């Protein structure tokens, strides 16, 4: 019978308020197999850990049960403490009597009874535990960054500077992401492309960074340190190596079409580059728009091209890369205004969203920076800005705050007032969230210096009446209804995950939350890591945030990658599957179950009685196996088992819970 030590944690009042901790440790004292049982105020504190270590050494304990908070919190802490005291860390199990007992039950007697039963069942589990030793796995020191916006580029530059190769995949033909579309940035009003182009240029020419624009990740297999990723490079129909970027083709191309980059505010040619400072500064032919693709005629671009680099029959290419770590920086999109019924559902040309206003206000935009009405191109005399369009709105299923709209709407109003001094800028808001450095001062400047009118209240409806837009809202401070006629209405629509983020999540096997933002490993303590080891998160892919926060998070993610690459090999979790070769008959019912293809048949020599016999058995690639255990259910004779959550352990736990 194993000598097991049980430690019940008070966790201050968190546990002891509804679980009688003393009674629990008292009752466990004479439970068969338990050699030592005690309770302590804060087990996760240093003195708490010392108590555990000392008890292990003094009594030569063979197993430890810590009844405290969730294993997701301190399992590694207590296992490290045990390891320091010479006990194999996988002989330590955690009973969750805080999040799953004291905090969720009010009746003290029930909660204590349940806690005691849970601890007893964990003691049974520890009795069946074994010594497990981590595996060493080789590591590919190359990172894949998905998304070429400011966060993706920051990660790429940081990791490249640290000397490791980077592959930057961007679905648009050029990098820069949403930031490249902005006019100025708050709170300093310095021009977005001025601070961005040095970064994009550096990324463009950095020797360690391989740029794969106009590409998407379509498949990712393997595990942390050894991913195999397939990237599909969509055809650009122009041979970018030969092209010298003279852009004659773009000039001469007869076909004009809506530019996605301009968000419908401007036009572009069928063959074009999105904006002048684009990196790589190479054109792309839009298959849908180009006349040659539709009718087979035209080919003007081929005629004018001095280096003959137009390739109409260019195919998409699938490139396979061995990757060590993946950083998801897929950025954000704005909630399409068509979804906002009360603001005209995109029917009115002069009701635009924040990004469209950025394009109008941007010097490299369609209006060269002059704020005009998209419908008739006149200078608007009065603009109404509507905050929280689609955000903080439970009916529409987006109760969260998009965080950046308060600041960029104040900036929009300020830019408008700088151009049209006598113009009226009115902002309907609920609460102004200006928490960053210099943010509040920026909003005050908009109110006091630029006389932007802030009306606290929500807008009920926006409709068109003889050529002008009517905005019906309420001013909750004065309690009156408000009716404003405006030439232009700008909606600060909600920030939503970029299109295709959910699909990317399923390809990379990284969970996304109900809104489609990627799930971080821990909201407070692991914001840049995803639940899947080796996959990191940066920027708005994880939640709406502004540029300073994005850059700091991206630098954090890069640091994580660099620390991962600083070691020559990785240490894998030993809680993986294990085959008992004496029992395995080699039927391989387990093989199709394994998502990581970690199970392969093998012919082994096994001694049976007095003769050796050749047998086919299943074998596990310990590096590939992630320990899900689905194969052990397919195994009829129980030959396939999962260390750490073995059949014996789960059965013992189950039996003692049912007593």
């Amino acid at each position, binding site marked *: 019978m194993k000598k097991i030590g049980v430690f019940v944690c008070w966790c201050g009042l968190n546990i002891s308020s509804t679980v009688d901790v003393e009674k629990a440790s008292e009752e466990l004292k004479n439970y068969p197999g338990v050699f030592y049982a005690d309770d302590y105020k804060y087990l996760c504190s240093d003195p708490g850990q010392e108590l555990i270590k000392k008890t292990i050494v003094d009594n030569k304990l063979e197993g430890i049960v810590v009844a405290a908070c969730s294993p997701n919190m301190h399992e590694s802490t207590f296992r490290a403490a045990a390891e320091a005291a010479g006990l194999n860390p996988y002989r330590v199990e955690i009973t969750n009597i805080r999040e799953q007992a004291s905090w969720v039950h009010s009746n003290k007697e029930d909660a204590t009874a349940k806690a005691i039963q849970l601890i007893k069942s964990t003691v049974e589990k520890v009795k069946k535990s074994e010594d497990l030793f981590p595996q060493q796995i080789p590591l590919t020191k190359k990172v894949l960054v998905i998304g070429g916006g400011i966060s993706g580029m920051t990660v790429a530059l940081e990791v490249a500077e640290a000397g490791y190769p980077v592959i930057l995949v961007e679905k648009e033909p050029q990098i820069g992401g949403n930031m490249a579309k902005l006019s100025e940035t708050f709170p300093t009003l310095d021009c977005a492309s001025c601070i961005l182009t040095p970064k994009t240029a550096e990324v463009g020419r950095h020797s360690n960074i391989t740029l794969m624009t106009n590409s998407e990740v379509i498949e990712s297999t393997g595990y942390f340190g050894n991913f195999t990723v397939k990237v599909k490079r969509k055809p650009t129909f122009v041979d970018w190596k030969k092209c010298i970027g003279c852009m004659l083709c773009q000039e001469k191309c007869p076909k004009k079409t809506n530019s996605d980059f301009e968000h419908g505010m401007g036009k572009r040619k069928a063959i074009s580059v999105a904006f002048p400072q684009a990196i790589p500064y190479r054109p792309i032919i839009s298959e849908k728009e180009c006349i040659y693709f539709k009718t087979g005629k035209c080919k003007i671009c081929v005629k004018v091209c001095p280096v003959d680099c137009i390739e109409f029959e260019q195919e998409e290419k699938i490139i396979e890369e061995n990757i060590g770590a993946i950083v998801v920086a897929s950025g954000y999109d704005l909630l399409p205004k068509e979804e906002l019924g009360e603001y005209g559902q995109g029917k009115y040309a002069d009701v635009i969203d924040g990004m469209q206003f950025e394009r109008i206000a941007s010097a490299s935009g369609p209006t060269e920076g002059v704020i005009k009405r998209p419908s008739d191109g006149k200078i608007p005399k009065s603009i109404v800005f509507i905050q929280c369009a689609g955000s903080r709105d439970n009916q529409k299923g987006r109760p969260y705050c998009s965080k950046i709209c308060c600041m960029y709407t104040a900036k929009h109003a300020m830019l408008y007032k700088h151009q049209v001094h006598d113009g009226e800028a009115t902002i309907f808001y609920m609460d102004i969230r200006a928490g960053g450095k210099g943010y509040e001062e920026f909003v005050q400047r908009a109110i006091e210096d630029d006389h932007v009118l802030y009306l606290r209240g929500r807008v009920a409806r926006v409709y068109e009446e003889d050529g002008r837009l009517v905005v019906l809202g309420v001013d909750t401070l004065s309690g009156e209804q408000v009716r404003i006629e405006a030439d232009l209405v700008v909606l600060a629509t909600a920030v939503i995950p970029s299109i295709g983020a959910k699909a990317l999540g399923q390809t990379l096997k990284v969970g996304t939350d109900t809104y489609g933002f990627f799930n971080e490993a821990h909201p407070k303590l692991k914001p840049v890591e995803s639940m899947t080891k080796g996959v990191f998160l940066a920027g708005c892919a994880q939640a709406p945030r502004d540029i300073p926060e994005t850059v700091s998070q991206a630098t954090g993610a890069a640091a994580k990658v660099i620390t991962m690459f600083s070691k020559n090999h990785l240490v894998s979790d030993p809680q993986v599957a294990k085959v008992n070769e004496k029992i395995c*008959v*080699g*039927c*391989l019912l387990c093989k199709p179950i394994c998502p990581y293809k970690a199970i392969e048949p093998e*012919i082994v020599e096994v001694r049976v009685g007095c003769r050796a016999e050749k047998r086919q058995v299943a074998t596990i690639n310990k590096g590939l196996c992630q320990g899900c255990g689905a194969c052990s259910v397919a195994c009829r*004779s129980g030959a396939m088992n999962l260390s750490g959550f073995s059949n014996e352990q789960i059965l013992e736990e189950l039996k003692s819970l049912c007593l």
Partner: protein
Amino acid sequence: MMNMTEKMLEQIRDLFEKKNIKLFIGFEKGFEKFSRIPAFAENYDEAKSMIIDEFETPLLAKYLIRELGEVGAGAVEKSERVGILTRGCDYLSIRRLVVDNIILRENLVIIGIPCNGLIDPKKANKLLGEEAQEITVDEKIVLAKGEIKSREINKEEILLDRCKKCIMSKVEESDILLEENMDDMEVSKDYSAVEEIEKLTTEERYEFWRRQFDRCIRCFACRDACTACNCRKCIFDITEPEMLEKTVATSEQFMFHFIRAFHVAGRCTACGECEKVCPVDIPLGLLNGKFKKDIELLFDVDEAGIPAEIEPLGEFKLDDPVEW
């Protein structure tokens, strides 16, 4: 049918002469009048007692596990080949072993024979009321003569249970085919027996199975006759972890029959041997039938009895049904 036996003996002599096989497995007369028992011949003259006729025979595939699988490492490398007499249902069991990597197909010489339903002498005796001394079969009518009475019985009535819902009457692929099947056994899928139990209320169902399982004496004949049960060491013989206790209590019986039915779910070839060998006649076919019916219904498998490369529980579809 007589010439079938001569044809078979010819083939066997030829196989032994050419040293193609080290062993041939067929049938010979048993202790009682119409019982046919497995026969093993390591040379031609041991095979002389083998016969082929229309009476019920146990499935031979199970013996391949011992003859080829464990001892001869036949699962792993080419070894001396074993000849086996095969009807459609035998072929399904052999395919079960091949798909489960218990034996290698090239270690087998399959001699396919036609079959249009076997007669169960026990059913004939029951209808006759005494032990039949003589049973003669022509086409659809069977004449059974006992010491006192004799009766003409419609062949359908005394067919073996598995023949009534025969999945494969022709041997799909064989090394030697003695004779082509005359006509196919057109048999439609019939889960009426399973549906009957499903119609009962939950209490009635539990009562029904409790009564059946209380009779079970845990002799494991069902496991030992089943080719889908081909583990090297059965989980019921493993004491650590003890999935099944030795005590024969009602809850243990439910555990035993649940685990066995679950282990062959989607892998059972509906050969009915388990039901046939059960000394207390528990309708085990219903248990496997229920799984087979659900698999065909839920995962649109057209015939779950024919072993697939990957068993139904070894794969999934994104649009599997969701409701419970």
